[in-house]
């Protein structure tokens, strides 16, 4: 028992769950237990979207220092706009819409890696520049049109089974898939090896470029998935629908215990961190904090969590 606890305490993701639980407790203590389940359910359904893109961001960040995908918000928007426009509220066109949106997202990933690899642009700047282009594409393609999602998509995105959002189950499966990829596939190992030392990975016979390429495509793909489900959830695509995910996707990766220096990814941490982020905002809302206070608290707690988690002590 003690040993299990000691081992658990060493897991970097445990703290994000502890923090999530703490803010949830404060919130329900304040409401005297009212709506405790509802608060949690709401947090889960919102956190689900952050988790989807957080997983992609995690893979990208794990490939080593400097790797980050800033084009996630724009890709979410593009995928949402493409999906809604191609589906055109028609259930029969659901599949073709999904295929179109995901194809567009994959193209974004390919383009990002083209900029990074062939034009040697640092990932931060490359994905930032491409996000401008993607956003313009989305704006000009879907201008002024707000199309409702086909009913099955909306149902899928909002359905609850025994109070638990269906999207949560979907995200759970996604998390398991990513965790297995990381631990049990050559691609996953390659990502972690490249994140630690790309030259050593190459000399160990690994396909360094292939893994990086696949990772940027995967991140864009997941952003596309998020875009489709999110438009189903919120009754259509909007041009600013991806905005909040820029900072959120990075924040959950780091709070969740993934190493920003690369080479160490953490799937459960993403979930804990995403829950924490949403419960935090909920708690501050319940406590009646003003917008300014809410912002300050959000920032201060992100900093506090990373300070307590201890950063990268083992490394460097």
């Amino acid at each position, binding site marked *: 028992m003690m040993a299990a606890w000691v081992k658990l305490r060493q897991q970097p993701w445990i703290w994000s769950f502890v923090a999530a639980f703490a803010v949830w407790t404060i919130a329900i203590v304040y409401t005297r237990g009212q709506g405790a389940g509802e608060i949690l359910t709401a947090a889960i359904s919102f956190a689900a979207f952050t988790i989807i893109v957080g997983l992609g961001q995690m893979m990208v960040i794990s490939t080593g220092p400097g790797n980050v995908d800033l084009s996630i918000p724009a890709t979410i928007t593009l995928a949402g706009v493409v999906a809604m426009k191609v589906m055109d509220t028609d259930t029969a066109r659901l599949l073709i819409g999904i295929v179109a949106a995901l194809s567009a997202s994959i193209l974004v990933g390919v383009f990002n890696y083209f900029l990074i690899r062939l034009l040697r642009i640092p990932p931060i700047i490359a994905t930032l520049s491409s996000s401008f282009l993607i956003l313009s594409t989305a704006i000009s393609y879907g201008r002024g049109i707000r199309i409702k999602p086909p009913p099955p998509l909306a149902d899928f995105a909002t359905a609850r089974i025994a109070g638990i959002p269906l999207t949560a189950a979907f995200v759970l499966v996604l998390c398991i898939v990513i965790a*297995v990829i990381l631990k049990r*596939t*050559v691609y996953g*190992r390659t990502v972690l*090896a490249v994140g*630690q*030392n790309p030259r050593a990975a190459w000399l160990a016979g690994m396909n360094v470029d292939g893994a990086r390429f696949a990772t940027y495509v995967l991140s864009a793909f997941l952003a596309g998935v998020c875009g489709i489900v999110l438009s189903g959830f919120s009754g259509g695509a909007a041009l600013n629908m991806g905005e909040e995910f820029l900072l959120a996707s990075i924040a959950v990766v780091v709070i969740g215990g993934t190493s920003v220096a690369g080479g160490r990814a953490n799937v459960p941490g993403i979930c804990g961190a995403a829950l924490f982020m949403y419960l935090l905002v909920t708690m501050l809302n319940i406590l009646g904090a003003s917008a300014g206070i809410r912002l300050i608290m959000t920032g201060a707690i992100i900093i506090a969590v990373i300070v307590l988690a201890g950063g990268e002590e083992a490394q460097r």
Partner: protein
Amino acid sequence: MGETAIRLDGVEKNFGAVRALDGVTLGVGKGECLGLVGHNGAGKSTLMHVLTGALAPSRGELSVGGEKIRGGWSAAASQAQGIRCVFQELSLCPNLTVAENVRIMHRALKGFGWKGRARALIRAKLDEIFPGHGISPDDEIANLAIGKRQMAEIARAFTETEGRLRLVILDEPTSSLDAVTAGQLLSYVKKETAKGTGIILISHLLGDVLGTCDRIVVMKDGRTVAERNARDFNRNSLVEAMGSEVRHERPADASRRETRQTEFIVRARPKTAPGTTELVAGKGEVIGLAGLAGHGQTRMLLQIFSRDEAQVAGPLAFIAGDRQSDGIFNLWSIARNITVRSLKALRRNGLIDGAAETRLGEDWKKRIAIRSSDIDNNILTLSGGNQQKTLFARALASDATIILMDDPMRGVDIGTKQEVYGMIRAEAESGRTFIWYTTEIEELTHCNRAYVFRNGAISAELGAGELSEENVLQASFAEQAA
């Protein structure tokens, strides 16, 4: 020994339960060159870190110039006392110029015109130690070859501004130097001691230590186990004192075949020298790449590895010499560091078979005798020699039939070396091909054939019968004028 430059009395250093230094008493006299030898893990590095102020001793006393140091021993204090160290891994800032790196060492180099003074200082010192060095004070370190970087760092350690140089520690200073520059350095060491500077020379090249030092201290398990004048030691007595049984260098092996086969599984010509001698290797051969450091041997290996204008028939594996930058995955366990090259073969239904992975790791841990209680321990818990063994296990556990080695014995203790030599021999007999770059001429005795490199080209091909030190040196230096 006359006045002491620095003295340690009963110094201990613990890292948790591990006692890295176990009561070391050691003095270096003014103008004395002290040799320090010992296996990996004998405590030499810890001792150096204590002297340079990077680590504080857990117990014991330190006195500099006869004065006891009381508290506040730090890197800055050590600097101020005129103690310098040339570490095994380079301590230069790659983004700065040679002159700017000099400034980092000297607090006195500030104010108007500091750069001019820094330039003059390092240029004079480089000229003094390494005549004909070809390094400009305004060269950026990143643009210099590794040998020149080491020369710059060594010269920097000997520069003086305010305050006299008291002690210079040279930790494997010749590891990246070729024979000529290494010779220049060793003769400079003698000149410098004549001026009254104390020097500690740490080296695996026992010949250098025996030929250069006044006194030699042997360390083992965090203690000094022998201390004598250099002339009272010889190669065998030194090795004996270090604790491993003396193995006589195997004379040129008579049983080794001169295999000039007609079927080759590797053929490559250095891209830097088109139209010159071609490197060829047959099945089961051990091929040596020799010559002065940095003359194209590593480039040749990488060319073969990337199958760039090279015919290679069979899977390849690469064993790095520079463990930190080319070999080890710091965050991973020993097991994962071994299996990383074999992951594709460990797949079942597209997923890596965890049990098979563990078996492979355990198997090779045993076969290659990696000293660790658990292969799931982090790779960094191993000593340097055992980390290097892990890299050997990685290559030998793989499906590779051709194994490229980039001077893998750098900084490895003699015991480990002997084990690895035996393994290479056995693997070659079972049909694997080794292409082995080495900076130690002795190691060529394990090869069937060797290619000597000079200026990016192959300058000579030596058969097993011709692999003498003399022939290698001949080929390394011959025709320099032409």
